[in-house]
């Protein structure tokens, strides 16, 4: 089975960020260990006299090429549709990709996406030929609107960015999966543990995007491997078909031909 992003098939369902690692070497080893083929990155101002981003740029290009992967630029830090659109266009030119992880932040406290600005930006970017991967909350109607605009991929949050709180609202996420069966759904942000990613995959999500959970682990490379395993387990469980939860106990062991100690009336 493969993950499909706007027609591009990928063998790994894990998308990984490039930030917060203790060193570039650990970042590289973690990305490779995760098996991910999609690496997120960004654009930021630098003081004209400061160190350039070219070293990082060459480094990340080499990693992605080694994994036969793809870059996914984001619009982190944007607070309006206009800012996000401008940044998306700058990213397309520099990174030579029309994929964009669209972030429009509406609140500084929890970095919650602004749904109104997100929809405005999404519509304009799609019209401009971008392949938009919008980062949104777990609001079913917003996801439906994004899908109706033409987003083939939608990325609701598990919980606020960098919190590691896992799936805050499993009911909401399950509803989105149920109501948008044909959309590629990638759970983005708030993942803390491999079990969170496993649960998302068990629920039928198509993929998971994360950064902090790996980069901030004591051993990021080992944690990347753990996430890869968890994703695989969750996907297999979903395909295998999870049993229906039941309200009452049911004996697993056959009750026919019970041995003598269950027939006290026969003993004397």
């Amino acid at each position, binding site marked *: 089975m493969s993950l499909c992003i706007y027609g591009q098939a990928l063998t790994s369902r894990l998308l990984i*960020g*490039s*930030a*917060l*690692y203790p060193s570039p070497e650990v*970042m590289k080893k973690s990305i490779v260990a995760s098996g991910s083929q999609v690496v*997120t*990155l*960004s*654009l*930021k*101002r*630098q*003081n*004209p*006299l400061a160190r*350039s*981003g*070219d070293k*990082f*740029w060459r480094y*990340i290009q080499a990693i992605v090429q080694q994994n036969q992967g793809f870059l996914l*630029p*984001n619009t*982190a830090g944007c607070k309006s549709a*206009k*800012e996000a659109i*401008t*940044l998306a*266009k*700058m*990213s397309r*030119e*520099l*990174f030579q990709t029309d994929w964009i992880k669209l972030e429009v932040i509406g609140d500084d406290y929890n970095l919650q996406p602004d749904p109104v600005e997100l929809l405005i930006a999404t519509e304009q970017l799609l019209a401009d030929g971008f392949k938009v991967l919008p980062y949104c909350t777990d609001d079913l109607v917003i996801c439906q609107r994004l899908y109706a605009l033409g987003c083939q991929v939608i990325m609701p949050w598990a919980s606020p*960015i*960098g919190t590691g709180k896992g799936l805050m609202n499993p009911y909401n996420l399950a509803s989105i999966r149920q109501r948008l069966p044909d959309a590629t759904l990638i759970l983005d942000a708030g993942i803390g543990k491999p079990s969170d990613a496993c649960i998302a995959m068990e629920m039928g999500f198509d993929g998971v995007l*994360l*950064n*902090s959970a790996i980069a901030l682990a004591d051993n990021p490379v080992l944690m990347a491997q753990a996430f890869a395993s968890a994703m695989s387990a969750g996907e297999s469980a979903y395909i295998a078909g999870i049993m229906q939860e039941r309200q009452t106990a049911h004996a697993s062991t056959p009750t026919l031909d019970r041995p003598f100690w269950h027939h006290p009336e026969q003993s004397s």
Partner: protein
Amino acid sequence: MKIYINGNAFELPHSAEPSHIDEVISKALPKNQQQQSFALALNGNFVGREDYHHTKVCDNDSIDLLFPIVGG
């Protein structure tokens, strides 16, 4: 003429003709900076590299130069 690059003010010599983006870059940025990978916005609007030579920059205009950086 005063322009702002990433929020920092740069004084450029006045000339009879308005400067274009590529001229401003060559005058305001050190050589090593010019050779790096960046994308540019003028007053908050993206300008493609192919348009640098004919996009005019006026007094008090603001240029943003953005560079690749890690991201999640």
